[in-house]
């Protein structure tokens, strides 16, 4: 009797702590997963293991950043992986003009497609799911046609991009792409916490009418959000292309659901107004550690998928439970 009462209070106290500091709770989950993975494959608990997990997590974290920004406004971008693929394609085909041009052209894809998504959602009031899903289809069709025509030629990426995506500082210890992710993370966190635009993202997601009546042109906020998401998609795509060395139309496909899952696990609500990028970073790390763990487990693809799905569900549910009990 006494024991169970004590157990309940301990649990209640833990739950209260977790509520007050969701990042700490997520960090704990991440650490636990790392240890479990290390238990399965002792090699993993080394600099190399950490390095490979971070390398995995960088493009995912950047794509999840795009989802975080949009989910805060109550939107979502199902075309973000197609934007990544398209940007990678364009960057590869422009490789002959040098890395700078290639990267700029690649990022331009994200900018244009993001703006189109934003105009559709904010001005023409198309549902974001439908708008971005349609955009993804349109892009796939367009790029399939273009690979036969104007984009024919090189699918190899420029050496600089390869170096950026796969190379490292300090004798192969600190990958450039992880540093790039860190810089992007700092910018995103600054934008969300310390700028007027960041404030408005939360506010628009929470109650658009209140923001409109405050005198804000909310469509501007939304379009800017979709453009930012597009640019982040491009950057992630270029990194992915650099890592594989060559591009194809399936390049970033597998990242779509994880990019949403990372944001959800990190505590960003798909209904808008609640969340942040710190959580998303941890979400991306958790997912990539989980992927490593499943690879080491040496089980079939089907079991891997099953375990992956279950853990993602449990984490999202646990988070929702925490958030609702206040």
């Amino acid at each position: 009797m006494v024991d169970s009462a004590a157990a309940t209070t301990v649990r209640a106290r833990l739950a209260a702590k977790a509520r007050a500091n969701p990042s700490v709770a997520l960090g704990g989950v991440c650490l636990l997963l790392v240890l479990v993975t290390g238990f399965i494959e002792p090699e993993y608990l080394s600099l190399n293991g950490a390095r490979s997990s971070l390398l995995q997590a960088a493009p995912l974290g950047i794509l999840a950043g795009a989802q975080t920004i949009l989910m805060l406004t109550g939107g979502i971008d199902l075309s973000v992986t197609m934007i990544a693929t398209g940007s990678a394609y364009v960057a590869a085909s422009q490789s002959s003009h040098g890395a700078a041009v290639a990267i700029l052209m690649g990022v331009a894809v994200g900018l244009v497609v993001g703006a189109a998504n934003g105009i559709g959602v904010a001005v023409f009031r198309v549902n974001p799911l439908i708008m971005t899903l349609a955009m993804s289809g349109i892009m796939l069709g367009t790029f399939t046609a273009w690979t036969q025509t104007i984009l024919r030629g090189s699918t190899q990426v420029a050496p600089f991009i390869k170096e950026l995506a796969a190379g490292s500082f300090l004798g192969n210890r600190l990958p450039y792409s992880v540093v790039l992710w860190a810089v992007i993370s700092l910018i995103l966190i600054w934008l969300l916490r310390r700028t007027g635009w960041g404030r408005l993202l939360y506010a628009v997601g929470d109650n658009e009418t209140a923001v409109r009546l405050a005198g804000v042109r909310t469509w501007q906020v939304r379009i800017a959000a979709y453009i930012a998401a597009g640019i982040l998609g491009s950057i992630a795509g270029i990194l992915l292309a650099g890592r594989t060395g060559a591009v194809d139309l399936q390049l970033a496909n597998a990242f779509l659901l994880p990019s949403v899952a990372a944001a959800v696990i990190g505590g960003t609500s798909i209904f808008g107004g609640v969340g942040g990028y710190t959580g998303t970073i941890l979400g991306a790390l958790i997912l990539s550690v989980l992927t490593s763990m499943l690879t080491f487990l040496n089980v079939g693809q089907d079991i891997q998928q099953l375990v992956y799905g279950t853990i993602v569900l449990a984490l999202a549910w646990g988070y929702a439970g925490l958030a609702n009990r206040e």
Partner: protein
Amino acid sequence: MNRPSPLLTISGVAKAYGSVVALAAVDMTVRRHEIHALLGANGAGKSTLVRILAGVHPADRGTLEVEGKTANFRTPVEAMRGGMATVFQDPALIRDLTIAQNLRLSRTDPATFEQWLEEFDLGSLDRDRMVRDLPLDILRLVDLARALALNPKILLLDEITAALTADQAEKLFELLDRLKTEGCSVVLITHRLAEVMRICDTATILRDGCNVAELEVGGITQQELVHAMLGSPVDLAPDTQAGTTAPTTAGAETVFAVEELASGEAVRQVSFAVRRGEVLGLVALEGQGQERVFDILCGERRPSAGRILVDGSPCRFLSPADAVRQGVVLIPGDRLQALLPSLPVYQNLVVTLITRIRQWLGLPADERARAANAIDSLSIDTRAAARVRRLSGGNQQKVAIGRWLVSGFRTLLCFDPTRGIDIQTKGEIYALLRKLAADGAAVLLYTSELAEIPLVCDRVLVMHNGLIVDEQAAAQATEASLLTAAHGLV
């Protein structure tokens, strides 16, 4: 002294939300055949008690008894079975569904519901309208009809009159009187003491989560009621009177004017001008086009004819942003339209400071100071400030007002700004409106509480059937003279 037997007995009920103690210990008895007022300042715990009675939240301690039997409701369904029906402070309908869908969801008996709607002359209301497209007063009456359709023993009404016009409230009171004789008791929460004097039999007063008095309304004056509520024998009159010593604004320049405004059937022809330093009142019965006028003035809707003039030059407002840039700002009648419910009080207040793209990459340096000022001058209770959703209704209303104090404005459009605000703070808000005017603003004040007019306004317009039918000097306006005009009898 032969009082009817108790129907509902509440003893020692306590409730805390985290570290915020909403109810410390409440005892209250509701008898048969009685309309029982539950009074208290904003944040006193009235809505919390209602939520406990309705089975939404469990009490931390204490017991409820209905007809002598213990009834600690754990779910809303249990409470309904126990004979409770509730109209909550905020509309409890799902905004993205139609009325018919909402009724089906809550398993409301359609026939009885219809009957009650008829009582409020809403028989013609289209059941397939989306809830989000309906005005607040209609939603309140739909909530009420839904509660009545449960055929309750006890009806809990949390500030239902706040969003009703004078004629709707009068109809409600007649209905409550009838229910009372038929054996249903009513718990009525309101900040309008005249209503308490008009229909209530008993009043329980809450202060800081405790019941401090129970009064027989029949034997006391409104003044005594106020004293019991505020604890100390404060006289509210000087406070509110402060407003009436208005400087004469006759010579001041016109800041905001409309000429021959029209919009469909609702607004046929409206012209008026508000001068610098003036508070212009607007009075109307339910549905005379006042909502539409405010929608047009704040840029939410375009007029079909007529002009809006700011400082004498015509302006076209294509969106609220255009109006705000001209210094024309709105405190909407439905405070949910001005709140960011999951964000802190502070961010709600300063959102008006970042309306332009060039403000996107920074934050105003003095925003903290400005927000603190607004919190101060409206005495917002910030015990639950981390999310505006958790504030008491009155404090939410103050946030809806406060966000414009933070940014400043030249013309303030207020649609019933004191909805849900307690009597003491009301006095402070009247004084604040006068001060804003004295500092050079022009204020247009629509109010459903006619007693406010002489306290705050300089002039008052009366609207009827889409037309301005009368203008009176506010100091001479009485409830009777205003109502006569509002019925179109001038």
